[in-house]
């Protein structure tokens, strides 16, 4: 569900002249693809929770014993922990993000554009990388100690609920920030002016204006809760090492143990989905009503509050502090950790810096293989998955905004909402189960334990969020622009290429980059579905970290992060170089401060 929260504009109502026949045939093909990608794997897996006999996983046609099992002992603890952590994270992240959004968008804070870019970096940062950075920094004889900072007092605290909440709050910040920012940007100065003119002081003005963006705040709370519930990276690393089970990890555990208990896993999966569907539906309803977006029609551009020099410096320092904790500490920890010899070991020779671990990355190492191959594989996966997802997401986004209120639009909407709530770990387990069924592998498609299966799962994981992400910008394009092209002699393809594509290009690029970077660092599905001897980078790194080669794993993490940043930089530069000037003047303002 990673980028579903970035949905910003309500679907509009373009007219359509598409031939009904072509529409219905396209619809059938699309739904067959979506069934194979999401509906069948997840649906068949979930059935096992109450009816294991349907797919020969037990003797009962209907039983609630797995439901009881899922809510007891270890499994129950995982579910309970996830629920309270997600609630805390949602409240914390929305509070911090609201303050950040207000400072960045409504004041003369220093470095506003820089902070907005940092927020995008934070969005792209996987949670397991953050955990790794924090761990490297704080552990005894770790990176902080190499810098002469004593962290013993906080190490124990960090490896527990506190650390988990800190990392997950950092990860949820961008989602809350982008939603609240959209609300704030639509909120013109006239409301505040009216309050002030009618006698309200600054505090009362704020009290008057804040309820106007309440839908955005509510929406942000919902998405942050859902994002945190479905996170696997922290559960698999920090949660596991702190003996603090979380729902996604106990689900993974249920199918990793021998014999695999698919039925209990299915119940936990259902709990995860059910707990995230209400907030996501709420968010969708709120965004659709768009009570704050209606302000934008004749609303003037928001005015920035001019902070005096002292408060401005203080506010800038506070924002820098937030980004330091959320992004700086993990990156710093990982970078220093990758350069310190014998990280975490009490060496009589003291702390030494070295580049050895970077050199090891491309040499055969303890795994008998170099680390270059997993990174290359992850890049290939990223390329295919981001491109495939982009194409499917555009098709689905157009379907989502066409024919508002129609049966097809409502079904697509409900399906996407439901799919956004499916965590990657559930999708991964669903794929293992469904594509290993003999009926499927013998009669439909035989891709179990292959790279295409992993690719399909990654596409399925990215498509719902990406579609909702694109629906906003796609719906912003006035239908008359395409109609004008057709009326003035352009065929269907030329009209799309010359009018819609330029207007969507920036959002397509950012959508592609988001999926690409998320795929490179994806852990849940990759961990479950990687084919034998074809480990993606994230899995390979985890295996190095678990096999007493933390430095090499950390160096690999830093290199992966650098590579992601380099790809973003190159892609943005190429876009700037090859696209006509007009393309860059229009479109999505998601990266503007």
């Amino acid at each position: 569900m990673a980028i579903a929260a970035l949905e910003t504009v309500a679907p509009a109502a373009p007219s359509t002249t598409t031939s009904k026949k072509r529409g219905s045939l396209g619809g059938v093909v699309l739904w067959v693809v979506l069934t194979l990608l999401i509906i069948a794997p997840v649906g068949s897996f979930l059935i096992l929770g109450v009816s294991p006999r349907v797919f020969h996983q037990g003797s009962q046609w209907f039983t609630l014993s797995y439901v009881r099992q899922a809510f007891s002992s270890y499994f129950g603890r995982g579910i309970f922990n996830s629920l309270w952590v997600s609630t805390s994270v949602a409240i914390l992240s929305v509070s911090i993000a609201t303050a950040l959004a207000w400072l960045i968008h409504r004041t003369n804070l220093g470095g506003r554009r820089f902070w907005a870019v940092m927020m995008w970096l934070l969005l792209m940062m996987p949670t397991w990388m953050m955990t790794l950075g924090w761990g490297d920094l704080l552990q005894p004889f770790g990176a902080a100690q190499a810098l002469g900072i004593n962290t013993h007092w906080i190490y124990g605290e960090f490896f527990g609920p506190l650390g988990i909440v800190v990392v997950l709050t950092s990860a949820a910040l961008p989602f809350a920030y982008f939603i609240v920012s959209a609300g704030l940007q639509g909120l013109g100065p006239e409301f505040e002016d009216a309050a002030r003119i009618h006698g309200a002081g600054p505090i009362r003005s704020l009290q008057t204006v804040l309820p106007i963006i309440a839908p955005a705040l509510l929406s942000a709370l919902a998405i942050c809760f859902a994002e945190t519930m479905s996170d696997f990276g922290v559960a698999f690393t920090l949660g596991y090492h702190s003996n603090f089970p979380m729902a996604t990890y106990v689900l993974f555990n249920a199918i990793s143990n021998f014999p695999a208990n698919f039925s209990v896993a299915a119940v936990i999966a259902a709990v995860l989905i059910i707990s995230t569907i209400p907030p996501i539906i709420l968010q969708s309803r709120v965004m659709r009503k768009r009570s704050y977006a209606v302000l934008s029609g004749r609303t003037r551009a928001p005015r920035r509050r001019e902070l005096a020099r002292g408060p401005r410096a203080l506010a800038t320092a506070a924002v820098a502090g937030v980004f330091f904790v959320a992004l700086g500490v993990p990156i710093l920890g990982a970078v220093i950790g990758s350069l310190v010899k014998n990280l975490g070991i009490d060496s009589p020779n003291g702390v030494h810096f070295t580049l050895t671990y970077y050199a090891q990355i491309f040499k055969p190492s303890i795994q008998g293989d170099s680390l270059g191959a997993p990174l290359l594989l992850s890049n290939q996966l990223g390329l295919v998955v981001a491109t495939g997802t982009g194409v499917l997401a555009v098709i689905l986004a157009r379907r989502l905004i066409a024919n508002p209120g129609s049966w097809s639009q409502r079904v697509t909407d409900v399906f996407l909402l439901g799919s956004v709530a499916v965590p990657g770990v559930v999708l991964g387990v669903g794929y293992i189960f469904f594509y290993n069924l003999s009926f499927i592998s013998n009669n439909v498609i035989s891709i179990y334990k292959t790279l295409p299966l992993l690719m399909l799962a990654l596409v399925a994981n990215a498509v719902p969020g990406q579609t909702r992400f694109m629906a906003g910008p796609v719906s912003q394009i006035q239908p008359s622009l395409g109609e004008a092209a057709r009326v003035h002699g352009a065929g269907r393809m030329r009209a799309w290429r010359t009018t819609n594509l330029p207007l969507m290009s920036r959002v397509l690029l950012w959508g592609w980059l988001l999926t690409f970077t998320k795929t490179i660092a994806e852990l849940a599905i990759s961990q479950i579905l990687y084919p034998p001897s074809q480990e993606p980078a994230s899995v390979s790194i985890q295996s190095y970290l678990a096999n007493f080669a933390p430095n090499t794993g950390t160096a690999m993490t830093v290199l992966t992060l650098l590579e992601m940043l380099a790809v973003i930089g190159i892609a943005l530069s190429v876009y700037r170089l090859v696209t006509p000037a007009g393309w860059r003047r229009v479109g999505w303002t998601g990266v503007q401060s």
Partner: protein
Amino acid sequence: MSEVTKRAVGVSMSGLGKVFSEKLALDDVSIEVEPGTFLVLLGPSGSGKTTLLRCVAGIERPSQGSISIGGNVVVGGKTFLPPERRRLAMVFQDYALWPHLSVRKNVAYPLATSTLEKGERTRRCDDLLERVGIGHLAERYPNELSGGEQQRVALARALAAEVGLILFDEPLSNLDADRREQLRIEIATLTREAGMTAIYITHDQSEAFALADRIGVLNQGRLVQLDTPENIYRHPHSAFVARFTGVAGEFPVHVTNEHGEGVVMVALPFAAGHTIEASTIERLESGADVRLFVRSSGVSLGVPSRDEGVRGMIIDVAFNGRGYDHVVDVGEGFTLTKVFAATKFDRGQNVKVCFDPSACFVMDPTREVSK
């Protein structure tokens, strides 16, 4: 025959119907547009005028009926030509300028598929931009222009297409009064100079009267009258057309007696014993209860004298630049609005009200005639 006259094409619409989710947007509309005619479709919101225009453009597909442009069937039976094959141009209500293209590239868009050399295309675009008065803005982008300038770009783009038919979808509705007037003149002049047939939709009757060779009035998806502007104004076929094209007052009256061909005498409800002449297109019996519609041009004000006549009192007055528009209370709760006089009558002043029979007409208020 000049080149421009050759370019204009006729448009024939027959039995057009369009249903949106069980809502009837167009109901059996048939219109013939002669080549070179400037047809204005006039109607309130929801009357179907935009749907009709979009059907002609090929953006909407009618549920029934046929359309021919220049003698070629573009809709009819199983035929449905997409917009790009209809050889027409259009000015959109929201201008529909492509924000990523400069003004010059927007205007050059329709020429992309032409056989003209690049230099010739540029020259033609620049000529057009000069003609619409924005030659100096060729390198700008749409978001750097005012509303009026954007509308001129949209007009230049439509003219650049060099086709026989140009469609206007309420092109002036987003502009302020001054710019609207100025652009209305430019649209009329440039379209006629280009020798194109034009179909223009609006809900503004003054715009319609100023532009049209012929006006089609639409109501609830039906064409209720198609005629010259003069006939629409002087001889409305229904109460709806009369009201929509502007009346100063509307009163229940009864016919006292016929007074020649198409003229009756009616008793005014607000001035006992007073009767006036009014025109009618119906045959009305003496004693029939009908409604009297008075155009603002059919009322004049004067200083009261001892002569018998209708009396009124000024309750509001507004300066309109050329003179004064008055609201007159004529008694019994009836008022006349927008009564023009070159000189000002003050609020509360008593006046004499005179009626011109040629701008007063009576009809059965329930009468609706489909043309």
